[in-house]
């Protein structure tokens, strides 16, 4: 058998393996995305007459849309920070603890990912509602005299999103923490560093990649989230995904909805690029 026939056989094999996937992604990802770019540039739909940037301009100049964009990114930023701060010690426990409950803790962290998001949102409604657990506890303790409205606020959405996204952050930090060589910490201790100094000078810098990876996942999932903001915000916390849904389904403004979707996508891509850039710089140091 000559080298050329074995190479062409290999090419056929690779083609047969990737073709179904390429067709699927072409039809379900690339083509829809190209259609959306085109749609975002139409002056109106149906019955388009020209290509225009009006819808993009409308989005970046209208204070209503700017407010929505700021709220969306603000929410994602707050949620990312909170998941990182809350999740880090848990990740530390998973990666470094000798506890015999480690396996159970791991199950406790990942299991919520498998529970329907609708169930979790209903759970938060029961906790934060006017007759919910938090209000009942505050009333019983005499801190408040009548139920306070905890739902329909920015912070109820934050709590719900942190709950949904915390496992992603914990898992990505834990995977990096688990790879740090324990002898590095011992070395720092031997050289006279106290635990705090060992942490800030050795462990934290080494785990930055895990925090960064988790942050990107959490941020991206947060700016695209729909159900938690609409359910826990109940019309009072409009984020970009809710606004896109309204433009598409309620107002049937397809080009405007497509332009808003494109802006959201560009923002996500920029974050991913910035992350890739930061990681490369970090690796070089």
């Amino acid at each position: 058998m000559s080298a050329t026939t074995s190479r062409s056989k290999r090419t056929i094999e690779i083609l047969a393996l990737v073709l179904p996937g390429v067709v699927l992604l072409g039809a379900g990802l690339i083509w829809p995305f190209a259609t959306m770019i085109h749609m975002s540039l139409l002056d109106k739909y149906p019955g388009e007459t020209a290509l225009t940037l009006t819808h993009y301009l409308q989005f970046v100049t209208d204070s209503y849309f700017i407010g929505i964009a700021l709220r969306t990114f603000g929410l994602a930023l707050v949620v990312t920070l909170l998941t990182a701060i809350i999740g880090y010690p848990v990740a530390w426990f998973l990666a470094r603890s000798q506890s015999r409950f480690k396996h159970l803790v791991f199950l406790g962290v990942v299991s919520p990912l498998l529970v329907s998001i609708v169930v979790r949102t209903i759970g938060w409604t029961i906790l934060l509602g006017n007759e919910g657990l938090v209000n009942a506890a505050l009333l019983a303790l005499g801190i408040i005299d009548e139920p306070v409205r905890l739902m329909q606020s920015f912070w109820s959405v934050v709590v719900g999103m942190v709950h949904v996204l915390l496992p992603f952050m914990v898992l990505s930090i834990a995977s990096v923490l688990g790879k740090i060589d324990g002898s590095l910490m011992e070395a720092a201790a031997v050289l006279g560093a106290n635990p705090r100094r060992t942490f800030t000078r050795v462990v934290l810098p080494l785990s930055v990649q895990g925090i960064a990876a988790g942050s990107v996942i959490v941020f991206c999932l947060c700016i695209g989230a729909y159900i938690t903001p609409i359910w826990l915000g109940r019309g009072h916390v409009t984020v970009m995904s809710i606004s896109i849904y309204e433009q598409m389904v309620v107002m049937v403004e397809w080009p405007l909805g497509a332009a808003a979707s494109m802006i959201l996508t560009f923002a996500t891509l920029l974050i991913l690029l910035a992350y890739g850039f930061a990681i490369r710089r970090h690796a070089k140091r």
Partner: protein
Amino acid sequence: MRRRSDTLLNIYVGLVLLFLALPIAIVIPAAFNTDPTLAFPPKGLSLKWFETAWNHQPFWDALWITIAVAVLASAISLIIGTLASFAIVRHKFPGREMLELLFMTPLVFPAIVLAVALVMVLGPLGLVRTFWGLVFAHVIVTVPYVVRTVGATLSEIDIAYEEAARTLGANPLKAFFLVTLPMLRPGLIAGAVFAAIISFDEFTISLFLVGPGVMTLPLEIYYYTEFQMDPTVAAISAMLVAFTAVVIVLVERFIGMQKQFRH
């Protein structure tokens, strides 16, 4: 000193676990409330909301469609994703990294954007609000999970085993079915299970693609709450939690959760 910081960490981890478990666990007592409100603690104990949920025909219709979509979408994803994983893990070819990246795109892409984009192509084809349109969209979002889990398992299987079988006279097909496939089974099961769970729970993309006669359970529950917020939704949630618990125990028993999340 060391002891005390360990105890503090343990308490902290316990509190975080409580935070993660509480909103899920609380639907169970709330489902037994006698009052028609989503309240905790419940005023009295009753099973009537389970009965209401059980007798609510739209939940059943939606459940069957959700299961059918999940089974079909994960089966299709499993086939396409496994083929692609073989190409990505076992071969070097131009555009390999690009393909790998493309497969992961639905994971970080805003779900709402993917939904909007899909509607724009499925609409003119008459596939919006149809069963097969829904299956197609679910394949797109579930295939990354298959590529990831199967790819991770495959990359741990030494190709030498397959080559040894070939040397011993097995043809490529036989070597694959007798050697590689049995070793790959945990990855395949995990990929299929995760794909099915993702599909079962999918909300945002289905939101744009469901309609009369083609409704999924998460959306049916959501639309139910638009009209009334009574413990019926807690009852159906409690049943879903019980179902998820069974799935978690099975996954843990047969494939091991830790293995699947390590990557």
